[in-house]
Every structure is written in structure tokens, then in C-alpha cells.
């Protein structure tokens, strides 16, 4: 801004037009003031830029206040998800009650089927025991009956000769007609008894067969028993599945309740449901060491000097947040804290500091 050079031509021009000399001096004075101010401003700007960059690169206690509103996209999304979760719990509860009722009914039915199966089994056992007892007796009786019938047949064969004798005697008039009729009737009666005895013998054979071998009736009973047991088995499977479903639904309800419990610890829940204004701040993971509940919060002028205490850390939320660095504008990961602010305007500051003043003042 200074020159050692001079020029005679210029001097002569100035001499000719002194007014120019005055104007030039005034203009130059203004220009130099402007230039000095500008250059110092540039220097100050560069120094501030370098200092701010260095300060925020090294400082480990800054946090960025976040102002959340109920109509904020994240809050709305959060509330919507919370409502859906609660609705899911209610739906699951209805399902659980219905499933429990069905399960109870099925258990009762299974009990009745099991009782029936036991009774059937007892009846079969009883009948088999009886058959084992009466079967040999009937077999002996059947054999005896067969022998009796054979004897009767032999006697009846002789009686048929007798009937012929009676008819001859009647024809020859040896006997009266009445006597002959009575004798013939007696013979006929003996035939009828023999036939009855034979029928009884056949029926006895049938009974023996039933008692001593497995017949169709027994098979039918066994089939019924198998069907009954199959029904019980199917019911067991259904009961098992229903039980597991019920348990799963209950677990799902527990999970949803747990998730809602955690969600209630979220700043967005507090923001959406809190009646009072709540103040939050983002803390990058690099600065996590300075976050403790109750730690004082400082707000500073120019984001670093003339700091004053404006509140304390009320709560630390566990969920991860990703925001743009308030100074560097790069993405940073961290967590959210809730602040108790005695000076609400500090929530609008670009940064606040946790634990202490970032510089000495």
C-alpha cells in the first residue's frame, strides 16, 4: 500500500489540475482505510475459521440442541408406529382369549374320549376273560350235545320202524285207532324234539365259535377302538399346535410391551406425548464421555466464549441418532439427551457444552 516510485509526468498533471490531487488524496485515504479493514477482516476470518475448525475437531464436550415438534416427521412416524404396536397387542389379546377357549374345549373333548377309550378297553378285557372261561365249557357241552343228538337219531330211527308197526297194527285192527294216533303223535313229538335239539346244537356250536375265536363283532369293536385312539391322537396334535400358538402370541405380546416400554424412553415419544416443552440435544459418540445425568450445560457466545450455565442433563436416551455436524456439516453418529433448561433460548443455540466451559471463560 506504499510506493517508492514517482513520476514527473504525473506531478506535472497534478500541478495543472490541483483539484485532482485533492480528490485523489481523499479517495486514496478512503481506499486505504477500506483496504486495511478488509485485509484485517480477511485475516480475522481466516484465523477464526482455523480456530473454529481446530476447536470443534478437538473439543469433546459439545452437544447440538435439537428442537422437536409434535408435527415433526420423525415424531409423527414414531407415534404412528406406537399406535400400530398397541393395536397389535389388542388384536393378539383377543386371539389369545379365543385360542384359550378353544384349547379348553378341546381338552374337555379329549378327556371324554380318553374315558370312553378306557371303558371300551375294560369291556373288551372283561368279555375276553369271560369267553376264556365259558368257551371250554360250551365246547364240552357242544360235544355232549352232539353225542346226545346222535343217540337220539338212533332212537328215532327205531321209532320210525315202530310207527310202521303201529300203522300195520292199526290196519290189521290190532289196536284201536285212538291208540294208534296217540302213539304216532308221541313218535312225531320225539322227532320234533330231536330237530329242536339239533338246532340247539348248531346254535351252541356258533356260541362256541364266538367264544373261542376272533369274530367280526370283535373286529368291529377293535376298529371302533382304533378310530377313537386316532381321534385322540389328532386332538393331541391340534392341542399342541394351539398351545404353541398361544405361547407365541403371549411372547409376541410381551415383546411388543417391551418395545413400547423402550419406545416410551424415546425423545420422540416424550415429544409427542409431553404436555410441557421438552428440550433435547444431540451428543456425538466422541463426546459421550462427558454425558452424565445431572451434568451442567453451558451456552456460549460465538459457540465457544463467554459461557454461562443454562441447565443440566436430565436423561440420556440409548437410541442412535445421525445428524449433520453443526459446524462441519458432515454426518455424525451419536445419542440424544434430554436437557433441563433454565434458559429456553439456549435450545436454539447451534451448540452447547456439557460438564464445563469449553475454554476458561
Amino acid at each position, binding site marked *: *500500500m*506504499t*510506493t*517508492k*516510485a*514517482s*513520476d514527473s*509526468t*504525473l506531478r506535472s*498533471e*497534478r500541478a495543472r489540475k490541483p483539484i*485532482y*490531487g485533492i*480528490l*485523489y*488524496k481523499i*479517495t*486514496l485515504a478512503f*481506499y*486505504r482505510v*477500506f*483496504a*486495511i479493514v*478488509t*485485509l484485517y477482516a*480477511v485475516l480475522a*476470518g*481466516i484465523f477464526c*475459521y482455523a480456530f*473454529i*475448525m481446530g476447536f470443534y475437531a478437538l473439543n469433546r464436550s459439545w452437544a447440538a440442541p435439537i428442537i422437536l415438534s409434535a408435527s415433526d416427521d420423525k415424531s409423527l412416524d414414531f407415534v404412528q408406529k406406537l399406535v400400530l404396536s398397541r393395536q397389535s397387542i389388542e388384536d393378539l389379546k383377543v386371539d389369545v382369549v379365543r385360542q384359550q377357549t378353544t384349547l379348553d374345549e378341546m381338552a374337555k373333548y379329549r378327556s371324554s374320549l380318553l374315558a370312553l377309550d378306557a371303558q371300551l378297553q375294560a369291556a373288551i378285557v372283561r368279555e375276553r376273560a369271560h369267553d376264556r372261561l365259558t368257551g371250554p365249557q360250551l365246547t364240552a357241552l357242544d360235544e355232549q350235545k352232539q353225542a346226545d343228538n346222535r343217540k337220539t337219531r338212533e332212537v328215532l330211527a327205531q321209532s320210525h320202524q315202530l310207527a310202521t308197526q303201529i300203522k300195520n297194527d292199526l290196519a290189521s285192527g290190532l289196536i284201536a285207532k285212538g291208540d294208534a294216533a296217540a302213539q304216532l303223535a308221541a313218535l312225531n313229538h320225539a322227532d320234533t324234539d330231536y330237530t329242536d335239539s339239533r338246532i340247539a346244537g348248531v346254535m351252541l356250536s356258533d356260541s362256541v365259535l364266538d367264544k373261542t375265536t376272533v369274530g367280526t363283532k370283535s373286529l368291529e369293536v377293535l376298529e371302533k377302538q382304533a378310530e377313537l385312539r386316532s381321534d385322540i391322537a389328532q386332538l393331541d396334535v391340534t392341542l399342541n399346535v394351539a398351545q404353541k400358538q398361544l405361547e407365541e402370541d403371549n411372547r409376541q405380546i410381551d415383546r411388543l410391551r417391551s418395545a413400547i416400554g423402550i419406545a416410551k424412553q424415546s425423545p420422540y415419544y416424550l415429544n409427542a406425548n409431553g404436555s410441557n416443552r421438552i428440550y433435547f440435544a444431540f451428543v456425538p459418540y466422541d463426546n459421550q464421555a462427558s454425558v452424565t445425568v445431572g451434568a451442567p450445560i453451558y451456552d456460549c457466545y460465538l459457540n465457544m466464549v463467554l459461557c454461562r450455565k443454562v441447565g443440566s442433563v436430565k436423561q440420556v436416551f440409548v437410541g442412535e441418532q445421525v445428524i449433520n455436524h453443526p*459446524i*462441519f*456439516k*458432515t454426518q455424525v453418529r451419536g445419542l440424544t439427551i434430554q436437557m433441563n433448561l433454565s434458559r429456553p433460548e439456549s435450545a436454539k443455540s447451534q451448540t452447547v457444552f456439557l460438564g464445563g466451559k469449553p475454554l476458561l471463560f
Partner: protein
Amino acid sequence: MAPILVWLILFLCLVISIVKYLMGLLMRLAFPSAKIRKDYTWQPTVSVLLPCYNEGQTVYNSIESISRSNYPAGSFEVIAQDDCSVDDSYEWMLKAQRDFTNISIRVGRNDQNCGKARTVCNALQHSRAEIIISIDSDCIFHPDAMRELTACFAEPGIGAVGGRVGVSNPNDNILTIIQTIVYYAAFELYKIPENSTRSICCISGCLFAIRRELLLEIEPILRARHWFGIPVNQGEDRFLTHQVLMRGFGTYINNDALCWTAVPTKLSVLFNQQLRWRSSILRDLFYTLRSLPKHVFKLHPNAIYTMILTPLGAIVALLVMVTMLSSNPLAWASPLPLVAYLGLGAIFSWAIGKFSIRETIRHPLAFGAYIAWSFSSSLFITPLALCTFDSGDWGTRAKVSEEAHLDHQSK
């Protein structure tokens, strides 16, 4: 509205720059007819003006390179004018006068230190030649340089012709590598579209040929240049070129007229040089804006765009840089510009190695550092240039002057 305007100007500057480089490439490849018609048979008398200030032995080497010129010895003379150097420059000039007797060398000295522009004017007083070639005293000239320059004046309407300035120390360090690529790109591409319309906006003062009558016409204005009463001694090459164009003459750079200069190897020297150049560019912008209607009627649009958008781009780049740093402080750390610069560095290094072997670069990746230079250039040099218009020293040589002065005092 204002930010949109700023972005629009920046966009326009970028587009024009890219278009100029691409057009330069296209013209080189597809339109060799855009080159000037040279006539080597026309050999006018030439005065080589050599203004000097604190150059030491370099001025001797420079005169030595001129003495080896292929131009007929009887047709040219060297007029070396010392601007009261505080070192032994004047002694070296006298020694050159004694040693190189094959050419005519006149050595003179200013009564007082008055800057390069006025030193050139003082030297001009001793010249009677048809063509004046003003050169920098730290350059080494190709034997054909003078012949190449004068041959271009055969084309009617050409008022001034410049030469191609090559870098003699391309591999000294990272700064010289960057400058080598920048010089090559500027001469071999950027200025080609301006060449095609014979409207080069700035012929380098390293090798500047002009018709004598034209320089005599411009000389009073050149001497009287001032910034609110303070003499302006910098950027005489840009000013002269501008004045030649404003008088309806054409300007041209003949890339076959070669000279070699050692570019700054120290950051402080480079910073001062760039500051001087930026200052002269911005001065030129204000002059152009002040007489814009005259420019519109007299100059080719190509020249007006270059005269306005080049300096405006520097100012807008400063605004954009400040806006960027305040809104997104780490935006400059994006890898994209670095990749782009590395790519450009690789391409230009290949081209230099193929077409300008003397300037072959050993470490082309060093051009990646240009991003840091562009950044600091936009952020520091532009505001500093805007705030130091009242400075009028020799720039890089002033320090030497002060140091030498102190040495004298201590002795």
C-alpha cells in the same frame, strides 16, 4: 437474486474457460489454417529492449542468448536499461556489452528507480528500429525467437506479437511442476481461440514484440498510468496488449517463438508474482468496464469475454469460496476436485512429454497440489490484489532491493 447472479457468473466463467480449452484443442487439431501467415523474408530492424532490476548475472545470460540469435546481426540491437538496481546487475550488463561484440548492445541506466513500464519507455528513447521487442531480463531466448516474431508482422493489421514462454526448471519442486502445466495449458490451448481472432488479451512481457509507431503512440499513456495519483508500474504487458487492441490492431502469440524462464521455486516469490498478475488483471477489468461501450464497438467479442470474465471469475470465485466455507466448511475436502486435477495433470504431462520434451515432468501427480493453490489463490490473492492497487514496486525483486539496501547500510 444476488446469489443467483454470482452463481450465474461463475457458471459462465467456467463454461467459457472449458469452451476455450476445448476450442483450443479443436483448433490445434482441425484448423491449422487459423495460424498466422508468416513471411521470413521480411526482416525489419529490431530493437530488443531489456529492462532490468536486480537480476544479477541472469541479465548477462539473457543477453548472451540474444547474441546467439539467427536474426541478421546488423538488423537488431539490444538496449539494456537498468532501473537503478542495488545489486551488480549493471556491471553484468556492461560485461555483456564488452563480451558480445557480434551484436550492438547499448547499456543505459535510469536516473532514479521508476518501475518496469517506465524503464521500457526510457529504453525506447534510444531506439530507431521498426519493431520493438521488449523482453524480461531473466529469460533465455531461442535463436529463432526474433525471426519468428518479426515474420508475423507480415500479416496486415498485426500490432503486437508474443512468444511462447517455456519453463526452464520444470522439475525443481512441486511449485514448478504446477506452473509448467499451467504455462503449457495457457499457451497451447487457452490462448489458441484468441489467436484465431487475432485478439490475444495479454501478451507476456517475457517476449513482447510491437510496431515502433504503435508503442510510441501508447508510450505517453503508459508513462502516465496511475491509480488515483500513484504511478502504476505493474502489468505493462497486459496494458500494452489492451491498448494495441483498442487501436484496432491485431495481437497474436507465435508459439514457435520460444523463450525460457525460470519460474518461482519459493511459495513467497510465487505468491508475489501471482499477486502482481492478479492486480493487473483486476485493474484491466475496471478499465474495461469504465469504457465498455468503446470496447463493444472496437473489439472482438472473444476478447471482451476474456477481459471481463477472467477477472470477474476471480472475484466471484472469492465470493463462492467465502460462502462455501461459511455454509459447509469441509466442502473443499471433497475428493472429486483432487481426482479431476490429477487426471488433468496426467493428460497435460503426457502432452508436454510428447510435444515439449524440454519441459517433461517427472512427477505429474504433483499437479494434485494445484487444488490447494487454487483454493488459496481465490481466497487470499484476489482480496489482497483488490486492496493493494496503490502498490507500485517491482514485485518479486523488491525484497532483494530492500535486503541489498540493508547490506549496503551495514557495510
